[in-house]
């Protein structure tokens, strides 16, 4: 009988588990299979509640909304009022001002992602070198990310108030007669909303970048210095390439998240002024629950999902070319 030490490091892949199972002092093959089956059963039982909830609240509604996107339905009347209209909803999208303006706004809003990442990286590099008060500064910068977005929206609305808010009061005191009216101006409303989200999100990016930075071994920097690299070259050839896994992760999740923005729009601008800040997620809500056109809203939602899926697929393909793993 083999004397296997159970204290050795367990293998991490299936082949290793098989080998370890084989090495255990169980004589019959049936016993080994039973053990694995029991563990698999236990695993399924443990994830069953979560899977059940996920199916009922996510998978089934998503499939239902696919069916709904081919119908015209005022949900107040129940399912008897469902009417199938084929591709009519999708055909109506290109001529719908609310949809096209929302799409345009979402594409502009997606710029939030690289800007937030840039700020996150900048602050991460700074905090990596700066030793004093590091954890205090890190917590302070991360705080907006965990604050309720409604609270953030409410406070920034006061700060950006076009007549009495601190920002414009300051600009008036500098002698400016007509400072921008921020959320009350078609040109400035979207940049203002973008600014607020950059402010709220770069803490999260910074924390991830800090973790990434701290995993770069010192030897690489020293080797580069021996070769005569200055700070810019170090950034270009060491820091940025080795942070590409983090960058890629933040880019994918950031873009997906930017297409889902809703709460700030609903609280601060309700899509206004005019159609300056209407977003696809807000348009879905308004079409379904204010105009009572559930079928049409579902079609907008599915188009949104397809757009996000395409963008994510492009990014995933780009990952193979760009991301450096070592």
């Amino acid at each position: 009988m083999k004397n296997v030490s159970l204290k050795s490091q367990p293998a991490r892949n299936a082949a290793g588990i098989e080998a370890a199972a084989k090495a255990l002092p169980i004589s019959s093959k049936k016993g080994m299979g039973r053990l694995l089956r029991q563990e698999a059963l236990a695993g399924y039982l443990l994830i069953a509640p979560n899977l059940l909830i996920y199916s009922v609240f996510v998978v089934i509604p998503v499939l239902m909304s696919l069916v709904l996107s081919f119908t015209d339905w005022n949900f107040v009347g129940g399912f008897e009022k469902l009417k199938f209209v084929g591709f009519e909803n999708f055909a109506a999208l290109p001529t719908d001002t609310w949809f096209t303006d929302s799409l345009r706004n979402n594409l502009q809003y997606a710029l939030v992602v690289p800007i937030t990442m840039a700020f996150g990286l900048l602050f991460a590099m700074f905090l990596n070198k700066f030793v004093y008060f590091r954890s205090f500064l890190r917590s302070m910068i991360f705080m907006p990310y965990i604050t309720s977005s409604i609270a953030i929206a409410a406070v920034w609305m006061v700060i950006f108030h076009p007549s009495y808010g601190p920002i414009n009061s300051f600009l008036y005191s500098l002698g400016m007669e007509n400072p921008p009216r921020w959320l009350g101006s078609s040109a400035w409303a979207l940049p203002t909303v973008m600014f607020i989200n950059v402010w709220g999100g770069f803490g999260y990016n910074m924390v991830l970048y800090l973790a990434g930075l701290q995993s770069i071994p010192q030897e690489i920097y020293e080797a580069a210095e021996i070769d005569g690299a200055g700070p810019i070259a170090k950034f270009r050839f060491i820091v940025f390439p080795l942070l590409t896994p983090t960058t890629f992760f933040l880019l994918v999740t950031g873009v997906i998240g930017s297409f889902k923005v809703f709460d700030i729009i609903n609280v601060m601008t309700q899509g206004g002024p005019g159609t300056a800040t209407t977003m696809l997620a807000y348009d879905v809500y308004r079409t379904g629950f204010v105009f009572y056109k559930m079928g049409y809203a579902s079609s907008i939602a599915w188009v949104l999902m397809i757009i996000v899926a395409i963008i994510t697929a492009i990014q995933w393909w780009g990952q193979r070319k760009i991301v450096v793993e070592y």
Partner: protein
Amino acid sequence: MTGKMISRRDFIRLASSAAAAAALASCAPAATPAPTTAPTAAPVPTKAPAAGEATKAPAATTAPTVAPTAAAATKAPAKTPVKLRWWGGVPEASGPKQTVEAWNKINPDIQVEYVQYPNNTEGNVKLDTALQADGEVDVLVSYGLNPLKQRADGGAIEPLDAFLGAFDPEKEFGKLDNRWDNKYWALILNSQPRFVYLNKKALDDAGLKVPTDWTWEEYMDYAKKLSKGSGPTKRYGAFYQFPDSFEPVRVSKGGDVSYKDDCTSNYEDPLFLAALKNRVQMQDADKSVAPFGDVTAAKLQPYSEFLTGKTAMLLEGSWILRYIKAVKDNPRDFMVAFAPMPHMKDGPNPFRPGVGDDRVSIAKKSKNKDAAWQFIKWWSTEGYINMTPFGRVTLWRGRKAEDTIQSFLGDFTDYQKYMDVDGYKTVMFGNSDKNYPIGFKANAAAEIGQINTEELSKVFLGETKPEDAMKNIKKRADEALAKACKK
């Protein structure tokens, strides 16, 4: 592994069965002993989109169910009382509580309980979701024609014609927008005239008299003369809360003036542009109303602006009376005078400015429709007086004006000091024979409302000229109506 510890297999078995048991236990809804229809409906709404809000309804009403069942138990009735659930948007203490108490006392076999839903988008979705569950809603109140029409067209409302008998809504309440497709969908209860509230002290300071009959031009002139000061402490002459600027056209030509026919809008009519230009003049040239950007950015409310003296005149509905009466909560040092709504130069308004609202209907999925009709019939006639102390006046033509006035002024101490009662009587009860400028058409109403808000906001923020805004409104409204008419 020694014999003292549980083996890994047994631990996994134990943990998974404990987790499964906990999940199943937490899924079971809180058991309520009373055999009412309400708790059985609790699991049903969770499938609907507004899952979070719907589940709040049963929790909110477990308290009221205790009182009626206790009252019923002490009477030892031969049959269990029918329970009606009444959904409305008014805060419970502002009328519904008193109404429910009055009804429950005289009708021990039909007990009513009130469920309040906030009258905003989310609250209306909550009500719409509840309407799909059997027996969750018996009596519902819709605010505005559009929500009522959406619910009726969606099949959630029971037409009233089968219950009417000799009761003729048109005779009792006047011709209102509660009837289409040859059916009555609701009774409209609340008479809400719209008129101008005036700060008497400001009028006296400016040397102006309380007007009894005036045009829109004179109104704008008053507003200019009543504006005083500048900066954060400025007092404006008038106040507009929403971008909609077309009320002068509606009270002069009727509520359907924005529709040329069912599928075309009428926004090329020059009256709309004229009304819009007047309001732009008040904001930009006369500076007699607060800039629209400020109103929306700070979410200014009409009653607080008027009662704190930030605006000298307020053109609003009679719902403001509730705040005028509550002097303790809104202390002020001026008397409130009243003036009728201005009219166009070509003559007095053919309609009585205001709205009829509080549309009460029976839900299609209610299990107690006859009982619900009894309650509605009582509430809309004699029972509505319970809502009057809080500013709601019934449209019922059988009402006695003196009773209503007494009910409103009853607990208002020193009212002579705070409001001009004769003016109040004139604006509240004058012109009762005229009809409200009801809009009977509601095609694409929600979309057109959104279009108006968007285009008019841009005018008031100085980004579009009024003529261009009206052209855009006409174009987009026609597109929305064309889409709605295609079906």
